[in-house]
């Protein structure tokens, strides 16, 4: 069945169980036993149920179980994840040993599919499941980091070790032109819940839905894929008390290569140049060292729970504290989660409740400090003799890097509370009604204080800003599941309705200046003395409330014949308030089929093939990634005007209408082959997909005249991703004491923009031939873009001047538009910039290689992953390639060697290969022998980023790959593209105890 299969099965026979309950009262016996694998290993957490009753228990870490049952009970049902279900005859027995055969993971594993579950063997779409034991170890703070490198087609990149930067996630290539390419998260069945609230320790499994065949059930928000997270719950008969903890230490792997003080002095000497006396303090300052430190993180999680057949609970709480390798950056997070399950009327009516709370405090830094640490002269000292920071206010954009960190506080606090309740009612055999209600509340506060002496705010004697906003989501889901098996037919039906209301940005923001002391920081706002009347307290991005609704009707049919032929059809109709009056509603269909070839008679003879399934599907999912209120005319006070001798807010047109603004749609065709060979020792999947996005939501420029120049949200454009994914798992050795499992995943994706033209009838936006993105800023570099989005090319295609070597004096030469003549920088014209063929920021393919080796009490786990075929634009190296300014700004190590004396520009010189192979994660476990106090305890050591093989000269080749400007390394904090925070190598030591 759908939501809670075990309970449904148990509760489906009310009368029989009542009978058993009565008889059991008089004639009871105790049955104890042990559950083991084929090679004698105990099976932990196997579910043991007396057939035809609701009685059940769970095996412990040693595989042992004990159950009181009626003396007349005939058989036991035993099931465990990863094993084939077994029915055991127990008539007359009091002890029993059950040997479970390790069914292929691909077959009987329970897969979460949205509003229900399915066995792996019945799946027709592309879903990868990663269980807890396979999660990445180390300082893992986000859900996607748990599965980084393990799901083919899911490209997760963490840019450096910033504890406050979320990983970028890209599933099967980008399929949108507006912002986020992040997948949609469903936590314990709650769609769109806030993933940052989940403590990774609480997660039992993650299912990644990759194609629209599966995701269409979440129609509207699913175009970037769906990640379903299932957290731990107590099972009947379980007593849980577990504690886990780790502490880790982080070090910078690589710094940005700039000239040292001695290199700079030597260089200037050869050029007969001198530093100004104020810049030469006869010291050697490594500014990157000055702003950094060793990072330390620790994590503690405690959970306890238990219960019986009627009521169960599990409570868990966690603390994570991180100190980043750049001074002052850090984060602390507290999480709490309570799950309750309760059943009544012999399990015909079931309740579950989930409360989750998460509190995060972050201290962030101004990324400009990274740029300043590279350009501040290493011959200057950090502090003046009086203890103040050394500053040179007259040099443009030249700030003491440490002062930038120490004199500016950026802190924020985030609180999320989620309250979810679910009722399931078995109306009659096979039919279950489920209603789920969720209320999530989010609070975000921002704190900013800049000292009275800080570079940017000393003119106003300090600056403080505080903002506080809240948001909420209300989600109601009601659905019916029906299941019927007759003869060789198996039918599952789902019909449902959901309503969601969201509120964002409800709050205030205030700023002020003029402080007499820094002592109170941002808490001293009330003590400030703004320097003059009229200071705009509210000007800096005052929040504006926005609200939206989403309503859906959905249905799904699963039909299986003879366990061989499987069909699935999904239809979802979604309506969102965010779209134009003409286009609020859209339909998202999906059909798919699978053929279990190995179930056919003729395959029985092919003994080395244990499982073979061919599946194919087509489906459409959508993206509502547009802010509310974009489709109609709005007037706002967007200008302040001098009227009758006083200043007043004047009204003007803020937005023109587009009643045709509609859903962005992504259609996926997916064909896949699942196989198991040699008794499922080798299992795997090969998939091919074509993913085409149409009606992409995009900000179109309006023709001017007659419109005010500005954007209007519209639809248009087409983008395609094609790719192949391979996942192979090989159980090389599987003995009692020794085992070795190795897995390889491979994914290749090719992205292409097909057109950018709008498809809205009533929108006369400018035709869009291309769009330039990736402006990195920098002195003398305004008006440049590093990438061009243009039909016929991939997203992330570079558009640059073409470097052509150096002239006799060492000055850089570039090809002009003809591609033949070379010119120096000052003679370059805009039309000399060109699309760089075969240079895209998106990886051509990615690889992951996972190994698990166990020997007795030890096991070793490691993940090697790589990314290939992409280019990175190293903006930081470009910005430091200014030897011509070496007396005033520190150049890069290479700049002082190459002899160029011209100004710099965006060119292929700074376009580097992004290929890399990284030993991402290696963990050595030691399983402690069970004692009276604890069981199933282990100690582990993890090394993250032990080594990286790459030609990339910057800090780290693992750069941001999502969004519209992938593969860029930025210069400073002013651009949307930021520099890369130092990448870290961390060593973690951790323990897990179960009592």
């Amino acid at each position, binding site marked *: 069945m759908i939501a809670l299969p075990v309970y449904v099965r148990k509760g489906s026979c009310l009368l029989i169980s009542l009978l058993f309950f009565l008889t059991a009262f008089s004639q009871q016996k105790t049955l104890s036993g042990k559950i083991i694998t084929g090679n004698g290993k105990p099976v932990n957490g196997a579910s043991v149920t007396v057939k035809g009753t609701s009685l059940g228990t769970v095996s412990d870490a040693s595989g042992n179980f004990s159950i009181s049952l009626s003396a007349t009970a005939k058989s036991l049902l035993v099931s465990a994840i990863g094993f084939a279900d077994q029915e055991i005859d127990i008539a007359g027995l009091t002890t029993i040993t059950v040997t479970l055969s390790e069914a292929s993971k691909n077959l009987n594993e329970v897969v979460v599919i949205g509003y229900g579950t399915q066995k792996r063997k019945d799946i027709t779409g592309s879903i990868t499941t990663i269980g807890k034991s396979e999660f990445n170890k180390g300082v893992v703070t986000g859900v996607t980091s748990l599965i980084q490198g393990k799901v083919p087609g899911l490209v997760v990149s963490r840019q450096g070790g910033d504890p406050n930067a979320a990983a970028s996630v890209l599933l099967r290539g980008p399929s949108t032109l507006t912002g986020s390419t992040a997948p949609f998260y469903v936590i314990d069945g709650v769609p769109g819940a806030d993933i940052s609230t989940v403590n990774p320790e609480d997660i039992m499994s993650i299912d990644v839905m990759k194609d629209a065949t599966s995701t269409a059930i979440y129609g509207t928000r699913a175009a970037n894929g769906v990640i379903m997270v299932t957290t731990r719950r107590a099972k009947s008969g379980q007593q849980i008390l577990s504690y886990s903890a780790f502490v880790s230490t982080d070090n910078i792997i690589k710094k940005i290569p700039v000239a040292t003080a001695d290199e700079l002095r030597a260089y200037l000497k050869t050029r007969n140049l001198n530093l*100004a006396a*104020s810049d030469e303090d006869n010291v050697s300052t490594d500014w990157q060292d000055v702003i950094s430190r060793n990072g330390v993180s620790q994590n503690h999680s405690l959970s306890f729970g238990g219960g019986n057949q009627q009521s169960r609970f599990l409570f868990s709480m966690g603390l994570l504290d991180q100190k980043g390798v750049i001074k002052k950056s850090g984060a602390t997070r507290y999480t709490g989660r309570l799950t309750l399950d309760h059943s009544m009327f012999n399990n015909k009516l079931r309740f579950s409740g989930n409360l989750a709370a998460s509190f995060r405090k972050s201290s962030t830094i101004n990324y400009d400090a990274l740029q300043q640490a590279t350009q501040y002269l290493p011959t200057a000292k950090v502090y003046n003799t009086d203890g103040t920071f050394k500053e040179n206010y*007259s*040099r*443009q*954009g030249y700030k003491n890097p440490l002062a930038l960190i120490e004199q500016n506080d950026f802190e924020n606090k985030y609180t999320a509370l989620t309250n979810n309740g679910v009722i399931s009612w078995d*109306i009659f055999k096979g039919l279950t*009604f489920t*209603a789920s209600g969720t209320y999530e509340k989010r609070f975000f506060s921002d704190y900013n204080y800049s000292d009275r002496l800080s*570079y940017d705010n000393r*003119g*106003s004697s300090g600056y403080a800003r505080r903002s506080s906003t809240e948001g909420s989501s209300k989600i*109601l889901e*009601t659905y019916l599941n029906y299941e019927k098996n007759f003869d060789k037919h198996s039918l599952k039906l789902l019909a449902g*309705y959901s309503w969601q209301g969201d509120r964002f940005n409800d709050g205030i923001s205030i700023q002020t200046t003029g402080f007499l002391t820094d002592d109170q920081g941002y808490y001293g706002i009330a003590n400030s003395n703004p320097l*003059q009347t*009229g200071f*705009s307290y509210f000007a800096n991005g005052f929040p*504006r*409330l926005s*609200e*939206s609704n989403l*309503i859906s009707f959905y249905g799904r049919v699963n039909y299986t014949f003879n366990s061989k032929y499987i069909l699935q059809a999904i239809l979802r109709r979604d309506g969102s*308030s965010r779209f134009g009056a003409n286009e609020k509603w859209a339909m998202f269909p999906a059909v798919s089929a699978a053929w279990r070839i190995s179930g056919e008679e003729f395959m029985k003879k092919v003994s080395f093939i244990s499982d073979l399934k061919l599946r194919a599907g087509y489906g459409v999912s959508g993206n509502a990634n547009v802010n509310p*209120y974009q489709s109609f005319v*709005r*007037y706002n006070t967007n*200008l*302040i*005007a*001098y009227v*009758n*001798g006083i*200043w*007043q807010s*004047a*009204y*003007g047109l*803020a937005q023109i209408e587009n009643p045709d603004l509609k859903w962005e749609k992504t259609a996926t065709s997916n064909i896949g082959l699942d196989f198991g060979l040699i008794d499922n020792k080798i299992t795997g999947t090969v998939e091919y997909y074509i993913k085409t996005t149409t009606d992409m939501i995009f900000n179109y420029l309006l*023709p*001017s*005249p*007659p419109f005010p120049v500005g954007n209007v949200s519209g639809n248009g454009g087409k983008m395609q991703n094609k790719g192949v994914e391979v996942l192979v798992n090989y159980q090389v050795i599987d003995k009692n004491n020794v085992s070795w499992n190795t897995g390889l995943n491979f994914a290749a994706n090719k992205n292409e923009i097909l057109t950018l033209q709008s498809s809205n009838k009533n929108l006369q936006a*400018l035709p869009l031939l291309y769009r330039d993105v990736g402006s990195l800023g920098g*002195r003398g*570099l*305004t*008006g440049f873009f590093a990438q061009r989005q243009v039909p016929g090319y991939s997203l992330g295609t570079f558009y640059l001047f073409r470097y052509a070597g150096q002239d006799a004096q060492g000055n850089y030469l570039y090809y002009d538009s003809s591609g033949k003549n070379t010119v*120096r*920088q*000052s003679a*370059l*014209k*805009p039309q000399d910039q060109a699309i760089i063929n075969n240079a895209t920021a998106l990886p051509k393919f990615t690889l992951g290689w996972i190994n698990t080796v166990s020997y007795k009490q030890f096991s070793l786990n490691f993940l090697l992953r790589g990314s290939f075929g992409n280019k990175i634009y190293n903006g930081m190296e470009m910005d430091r390639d*200014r030897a*011509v300014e070496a007396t*005033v700004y520190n150049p890069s190590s290479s700049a002082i060697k190459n002899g160029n004396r*011209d*100004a*710099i520009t965006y060119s292929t010189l700074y376009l580097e290969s992004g290929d890399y192979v990284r030993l991402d994660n290696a963990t050595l476990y030691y399983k402690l022998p069970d004692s009276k106090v604890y069981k199933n305890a282990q100690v582990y050591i993890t090394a993250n980023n032990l080594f990286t093989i790459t030609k990339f000269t910057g800090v780290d080749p693992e750069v941001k790959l999502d969004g519209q400007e992938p593969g860029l390394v930025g210069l400073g904090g002013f651009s949307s593209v930021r520099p890369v925070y130092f990448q870290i190598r961390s060593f973690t030591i951790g323990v897990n105890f179960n009592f």
Partner: protein
Amino acid sequence: MLLIKKLSIYTAACIILVSCTKLDENDPSSFTESNFPTNSNPVSFQLFAAAPIAHLRNLLANQQTWELHETSTDECVVPIRGGGWFDNGKWRDMHFHTYKSDNPVLKDSWSTIQTGISRCNTALLVLEKADDGPAKKEYIAQVRTVRAYYHFLMMDLWGNVPIVTKADLSEGLPGTKTRTEVFNFIEKELKEAEVDLTEKVDASTYGQITKWMAKTLLAKLYVNALAYTGTPKWDDCISKCTEVISSGKYDLTSNFLSIFAYNNGPQIKEIIFSIVNDEPQKATQLTFPQRFLPGGFSNSVDYKAGTWAGYSTLSEFYDKFNDPNDQRNKQWRIGLQAFSNGAPVMEGTKQVQIQKELKWGVVDPANPFNVGACDTCNWMGAKNMKYSFDPTSTSSGLSNDFVLFRYADVLMMKAEAEARKADNPNLALAAFNQVRARSNAAALPALTWDIMLDERGREFAYEGWRRNDMIRFGKWESAFGLKTDNTITRRIYPIPQFFISGNPNLKQNPGYN
């Protein structure tokens, strides 16, 4: 049957539970069509009329219309300085008159002006719903006058441009009109609007559109009529100037620099119309010190923001200030620099010393437009500080109101029109000397057309009229700085390609492709 029964119960439950499939949207913090201000609240309408006027500020922002009026002239140049200020060649092309249709300064200026026109047209749409009465008439007249000014800018900069009176596509995409057609449109609009505009000149009308502003704009249109359309309108110019002069509302202000100071306002009798700036309200885009001055002024007692050492004046233009007693010399920053409190302006251990000469080619003969990268290189070229520091400002912006039309220009336009009409430059001598006398400059003995242009340069330097004056005086094709181009088609700028590609009704100007 049971199934059907249960299902219908379920369906009923769903309907009761949710009963809502409404997806209407309403932004609670904006005006929309559904909660538009009603006629009972005329203040709202005035605030709609005020927006297009307030939008004029944006013309002064970095890389905007002011730069189109100045950086291609002999008054102002933005050289490459080492690694800075290359900016994809946009400033180089302005100086060399090699501007092309993809120059971002052209694109941004076009955008800003068209946004202004669109603001006018949307404001008119709203104002037409207001109660009839003198107030409504006046608001509409104000908006039409501002719209005419935006069209004047379009026509002055690009020549052949569309006439835009709708803020939507109800009349299709606006197409190119000849410069004469646009000229006639502006003239008609101003003549009609002038009737309903206020004659009052006091603090309450300061920064607003008055009858006199409209008349001065007409005079400006007429004085350039020959350059714009080939047909002179000297008499019309003289009569509009005369109306302003004889109103008695305006006078020359004795302290020249006070006209442009941070606290200028209604007390300055010379100002006919200014773009009102106010830094505390963050209602200013006037950041000239940032764009012009060397780094030593950054975050200092006089200026609370970074300075970028960009724009300078050509030495040949600076040399025109040749009367040592002329008050107007004080608008220049040159030589050793000190702050208002007397402290020296230091860069490192050196006091900033601004030099008159931009040393073209000294650093790199192959690339003379790059004057080099060093602290002292940033000191090359005199700096105009007519719009001087605002001691109350805490950011890059200044509160100095930017003077668009002032009485001295009316006097000099009238004199020039009379001289042109009679083809005798000396007929303007009295008026020109009247304006010179205010600045304590010695009277000129005689005028030639060249001396007239020089005198306008001295009087109106950096006020956004240099390009207009040079073209009218036939000097646009002469050589200055490194620029030697003398192509006549460069008198108007190319239409930004970006907008042509979106509108087939727009035609590129001759000489550009």
